[in-house]
């Protein structure tokens, strides 16, 4: 009997030892933030270290609420994904409390300076960028249409209107815009924060210090007015309210529309869906409302953070270090079609000549307002609703801008922002 008990005890101890060897770290992220290539790297990581990575992918519309609830209840996963942004990581994520300081990691100094600034607080790095943040939202146009009509890339709003008129006169809808998704049409406003900043330097800082509101900016009002003018002149077509962005590639490839607002993954996407349409036939120019010629950069994207309450902080750090190894970053660039580069100084980009030419054509760069201005990104969908109300004539430009300011003030008050309290 004693022998049997001893055997059982030994078996139990062996089993316990095996579990201790194979640590599992949990990583929660929104849909589309963890690519297949990263999971393949995760398997390689497990082979090398014996640490298993449990990827927990959450539908995007539920993710933010779930993350906030987990952080606030102290039950978060070892690694969590979240959009970065120098303001949002403080006001929403409270990274100084909820995340681990990664400044001492060897890879920290290889993070691109712009991305570093958006993932750090007081010089301390708290996150590791996940995706390519070099792509910008710009007007993607069908070069064949432009060539046929003898059009050239517009450099101001009047030229843009002339281009739209020529396309419309030819029987095409100039711009494919999709309002029904609720997230796309406000790009014309938020991305062009760079135009506001160019025309009224220091606006972002004043907005962040609560020294002015969007309603006080003449350029912001002009932007909204010009968006409405585009709609009223029929440049968005008759069906912009019911269009869905998923059909943008089809609308361009079929010749129904000539332009849409897209990022630099669009040519690959359109060619993949419609092989007869060459990716090279898509060109880009910045949205020229308010005569904008500044490239609208957004150095913020999904970011990995290590939860400060994790019991596996060292294992999580090992995973981040593994991902940041140059050959693994390059593996991601080479195997994820929408990645042209990653925000690390150790990688080689995979830009096409067309895309490189587009970036080179706009030497002036600015940061979009959903990143550089506090409390804009969290009300993204609300801004879309406000803009829709303006387009439909249910609201004035002034009301829209005042409502955005009011929503920002509400969020600032909830966050106990000293500039508002």
């Amino acid at each position, binding site marked *: 009997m004693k022998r049997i008990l001893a055997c059982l005890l030994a078996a139990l101890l062996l089993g316990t030892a095996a579990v201790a060897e194979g640590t599992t770290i949990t990583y929660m992220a929104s849909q589309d933030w963890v690519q297949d290539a990263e999971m393949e790297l995760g398997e390689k990581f497990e082979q090398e270290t014996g640490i298993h990575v449990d990827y927990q992918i959450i539908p995007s519309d539920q993710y933010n609420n779930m993350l906030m609830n987990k952080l606030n209840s102290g039950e978060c996963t070892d690694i969590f994904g979240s959009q970065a942004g120098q303001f949002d990581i403080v006001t929403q994520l409270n990274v100084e409390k909820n995340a681990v300081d990664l400044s001492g990691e060897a890879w920290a100094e290889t993070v691109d300076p712009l991305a570093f600034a958006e993932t750090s607080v007081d010089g301390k790095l708290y996150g590791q960028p996940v995706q390519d943040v070099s792509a910008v939202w710009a007007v993607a146009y069908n070069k064949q249409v432009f060539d046929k009509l003898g059009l050239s890339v517009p450099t101001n709003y009047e030229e843009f209107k002339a281009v739209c008129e020529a396309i419309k006169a030819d029987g095409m809808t100039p711009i494919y815009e999709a309002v029904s998704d609720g997230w796309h049409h406000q790009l014309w406003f938020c991305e062009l924060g760079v135009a506001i900043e160019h025309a009224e330097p220091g606006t972002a800082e004043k907005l962040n210090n609560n020294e002015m509101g969007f309603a006080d900016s003449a350029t912001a009002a002009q932007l909204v007015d010009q968006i409405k003018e585009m709609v009223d002149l029929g440049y968005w077509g008759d069906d912009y309210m*019911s269009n869905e962005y998923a059909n943008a590639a089809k609308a361009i490839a079929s010749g129904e529309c000539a332009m849409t607002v897209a990022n630099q993954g669009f040519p690959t996407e359109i060619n993949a869906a419609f092989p007869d349409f060459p990716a090279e036939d898509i060109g880009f120019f910045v949205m020229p409302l308010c005569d904008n010629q500044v490239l609208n950069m957004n150095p913020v994207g999904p970011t990995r953070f290590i939860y400060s309450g994790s019991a596996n902080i060292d294992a999580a750090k090992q995973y981040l270090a593994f991902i940041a190894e140059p050959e693994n970053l390059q593996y991601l660039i080479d195997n994820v079609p929408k990645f042209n580069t990653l925000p690390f100084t150790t990688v080689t980009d995979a830009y096409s000549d067309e895309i490189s030419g587009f970036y080179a054509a706009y030497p002036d760069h600015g940061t979009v307002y959903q990143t550089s201005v506090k409390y804009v990104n969290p009300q993204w969908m609300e801004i879309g609703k406000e803009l829709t109300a303006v387009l439909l004539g249910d609201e004035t430009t002034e009301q829209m801008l005042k409502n955005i300011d009011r929503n920002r003030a*509400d*969020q600032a008050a909830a*966050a106990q922002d000293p500039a508002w309290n």
Partner: protein
Amino acid sequence: MNKNRMYPTWFIFGALLLYVVLYVLPSVMGIGYSFTDWSVYSQDVHFVGLKNFQTVFSADYNYNRMLGNTFLFTIVTTLAKNVIGLALAVLLTKKVKLLNFHRAVMYLPCVLSALIVGMIFKAVLNPKIGLLNTALRAIGLDALAKNWLTDSKIAFNSVMAVDIWKGMGYIMTILIAGIMSISPTYYEAAEIDGGNAWQCFRHITLPLLTPTLTVTTVLNVIYGLKVFDTVYALTNGGPGYATEVLYTGVYKEFGLGRYAVGTTLSSIMTVVMLIVGYFMIKHMVQGGGGEA
């Protein structure tokens, strides 16, 4: 069965405990949170008095519009479902060929999920490729082809119409049961006295159906006040804020992390429903709840 058999009172405690823990306590806590600044931004919760109620009733926000839309939705859909449901019930208690088939067809929409109905009608009402506009154009009625869900002046009517279509079969079924419980002798007597169909309906069916209509009205009013899924699936409150109702507002507030404002809206609607429910039940008990 022994009619004098009495069960101990404490048998009720199990069910009562569940009711208190799962319903009463969260409701009271929800109302309590309406007086705080509970939000996603801070783990600390502070008492703020009536500030959230001031926000909700302030003209600067869209909440008054949401409340107005909710009441409009409740009134219109309750009236329409009762009227159409009653007409169908009267029709489908007559001798009609394939009677059960017709009843099943009319009842069918209410067994569908509101989200599925929303997706179907979103496709049907698409202004460009939707079935409705395509059919209208095909028969030369182009002028009637509208932006059903994307025109802010029409969208709320479209949402209400879809909800009426979905819910009228359910009301019809309840009213059919009510009509069938009316003794045929009333109609036989009326026929002997020379009463026509309208007089039979006006003086027999309608009065004897009043208790059933009260029940369907209560059900519709409570459903209307807490409507969310149909609106969410069809328009998500848009275009702009044209079809926002109270619970799409609650959903939005929670999405923005303003939990206290969300619970304030819920608390207001709980109070409204309690008041409406109280008077309706009182009317049922006093009015004619015993007849039929």
